């Protein structure tokens, strides 16, 4: 392939984001639409080949590897950037737009990356920019969810970077981001896979997603729902196609997502669990590894970006207009928000693989691939989860928000109305695209990476799907009394670091300040705990920390540090070098022990 210079689409978004604060008023709104359009135009005009090679150390970094696979994913990401920005056009907060564009730039960077170093650079850009879409909601819950999101993605980044280094050593300096030998993955390969799976929200590394997406801003969660997981799916397709482990993992994700979605009282948390379920279909397809399965995974990722963002737009509109997203605070809004109901219903029918809607032409590809390869249990379990998807995403979500008994307060009812024009325009466009792909599927099939023979609109497939879905509706009406919403929270894997973290802080408090009484204060928030720790430093704890750092690292703290109050270390950002190294070494040692266990 020929190497030639090119304009990276991410550059447009990054420059556009930095220049955004210069624009005000109507000019700003035009600018917000023009930048994603230029990005989309650049992506459409990308030509196959290797582009954007930059010398680095003794090798080179490759920023643009364009082929059928990367073009498909880059196109849908750029398109979604435009739709997401249109949905958020009314948002006055520049930080939210800048974060969103940095985030999309990161996603495009990963998709076009030709080597693991470039991939890692953009991978981290995604994590560190998207957290601002959670924090922008500016509530205590969003702040906490954002920190947990960052913590988990930081952990994922460490896994990925360690994996890249080990993989590079094992392959004699090869950083290229290509298909791994899935029959003989080394330690590096497994760590890279773990990093990818964390972003794909594969259990048990998934809890960051419902936590963060449920707390993000209405428009921020729309953007987030499209990029992180689907970029990870792209990375899995590129590097791990045919890895047998991914099939059972994908099937588990599909079922796990629908079961947990049934337990949710918050509409956006329900949708977040359904992302896990939908990504499960893609992961299963990647694990099956046949041309039909891989193409099915690509196609399903493509349409999932559309219908999942449409569903988040629908629930985001309800949240934006009423201030509520919990089913226990909603219900009976069909007369107040009828058009939003129609758009959300289209998203629901698409995700449920209803004929003429986007999911119908893609989900069947993965299921058929499983049956074709005689993976019968996998095929039937994937079909079983389809019933759960229809039950919760379409029936439960729509019934409990728009129909049934109204649980709305008077204020909610007064505020409820269809959203502003820009939000509605984004929903209309996305809904039309869902129907377009469902009806004119050859347009999508012709852009998939591998040739395959699959026809969705056969009498058998139509009959199978319609029977399946309509009898699920019968089941829904029979179990409807069991689905009455209650204010509740379903425990998930984040329990370990949320509860474990508070015990860890209490342990630190006890060890460092020596205050036994502190253990009895169960309600102290982390900030207060840290403040109290610094307010009551004991000589013993300070000396113990400094001695430990000296013994383990050999760095002797300066006399000034020994005499100083630890509060000044924090205030002046001047922790003794030895102590910092000691903490880092301790952390890495713990991680190594966990890894080898």
């Amino acid at each position: 392939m020929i190497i030639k210079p090119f304009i990276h689409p991410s550059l447009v978004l990054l420059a556009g984001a930095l220049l955004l604060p210069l624009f005000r008023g109507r000019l700003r709104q035009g600018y917000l639409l023009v930048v994603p359009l230029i990005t989309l135009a650049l992506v459409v005009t990308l030509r196959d080949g290797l582009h954007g090679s930059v010398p680095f150390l003794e090798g080179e970094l490759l920023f643009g590897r364009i082929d059928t696979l990367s073009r498909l994913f880059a196109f849908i990401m750029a398109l979604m950037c435009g739709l997401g920005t249109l949905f958020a056009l009314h948002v006055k907060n520049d930080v939210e737009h800048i974060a969103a564009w940095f985030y999309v730039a990161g996603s495009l960077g990963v998709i076009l990356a030709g080597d693991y170093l470039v991939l890692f650079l953009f991978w981290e850009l995604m994590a560190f920019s998207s957290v601002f879409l959670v924090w922008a909601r500016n509530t205590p819950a969003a702040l906490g969810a954002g920190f947990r999101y960052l913590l988990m993605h930081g952990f994922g980044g460490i896994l990925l970077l360690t994996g890249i280094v080990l993989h590079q050593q094992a392959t004699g300096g090869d950083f290229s981001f290509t298909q791994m030998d899935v029959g003989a993955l080394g330690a590096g390969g497994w760590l890279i896979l773990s990093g990818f799976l964390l972003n794909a929200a594969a259990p048990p590394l998934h809890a960051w997603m419902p936590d963060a997406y449920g707390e993000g801003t209405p428009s921020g969660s729309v953007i987030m729902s499209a990029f992180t997981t689907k970029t990870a799916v792209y990375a899995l397709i590129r590097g791990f196609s045919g890895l047998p482990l991914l099939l059972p993992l994908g099937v588990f994700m599909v079922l796990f997502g629908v079961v947990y979605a049934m337990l949710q009282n918050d509409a956006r948390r329900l949708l977040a669990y359904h992302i896990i379920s939908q990504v499960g279909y893609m992961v299963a397809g990647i694990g099956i590894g046949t041309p039909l399965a891989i193409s099915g995974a690509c196609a399903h990722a493509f349409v999932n970006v559309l219908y999942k963002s449409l569903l988040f737009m629908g629930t985001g509109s309800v949240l934006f207009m009423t201030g509520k997203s919990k089913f226990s605070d909603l219900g009976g809004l069909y007369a107040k928000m009828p058009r939003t109901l129609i758009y959300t219903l289209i998203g629901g029918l698409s995700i449920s693989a209803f004929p003429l809607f986007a999911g119908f032409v893609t989900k069947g590809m993965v299921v058929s691939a499983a049956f074709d390869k005689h993976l019968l249990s996998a095929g039937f379990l994937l079909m079983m989860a389809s019933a759960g998807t229809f039950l919760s995403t379409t029936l439960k979500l729509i019934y409990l928000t728009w129909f049934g008994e109204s649980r709305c307060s008077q204020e909610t009812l007064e505020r409820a109305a269809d959203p502003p024009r820009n939000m509605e325009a984004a929903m209309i466009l996305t809904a039309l695209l869902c129907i377009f792909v469902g009806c004119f599927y050859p347009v999508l099939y012709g852009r998939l990476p591998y040739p395959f023979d699959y026809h969705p609109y056969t009498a058998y497939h139509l009959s199978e799907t319609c029977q399946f879905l309509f009898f699920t509706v019968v089941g829904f009406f029979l179990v409807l009394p069991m689905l009455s919403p209650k204010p509740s929270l379903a425990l998930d894997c984040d329990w370990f670091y949320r509860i474990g973290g508070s015990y860890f802080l209490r342990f630190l408090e006890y060890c460092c300040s020596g205050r036994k009484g502190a253990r009895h204060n169960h309600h102290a928030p982390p900030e207060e705990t840290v403040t109290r720790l610094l307010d009551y430093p004991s000589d013993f704890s300070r000396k113990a920390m400094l001695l430990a750092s000296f013994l383990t690292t050999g760095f002797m703290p300066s006399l000034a540090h020994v005499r100083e109050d630890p509060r000044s270390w924090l205030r002046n950002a001047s922790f003794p070098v030895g102590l910092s190294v000691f903490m880092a070494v301790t952390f890495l040692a713990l991680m190594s022990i966990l890894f080898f266990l």
Partner: protein
Amino acid sequence: MAVVNLLKNLGKWQGNGLPVTMIVTGLLLIFETLFVDHGQAHTAPEKIPGFWSLFGFLSGIFIVFFSKWLGHLGLLKHEDYYDH
């Protein structure tokens, strides 16, 4: 907007959802029995008319009951669980 008005009227008739769905599913079963070629079926049970109806119905019921059972096992907590 005609569609919106239709939707509002449908909303008033939402109590009839189950009978309407039962009629549609009955028609689908008749359609399958009379007109659908089962040559694309991958397994023998799929060739039985109504197999996917039963499978969809039981799957939906199973998922609801299984998730409720998990909730009763202790997964479901009060909303402010983490605040304490």
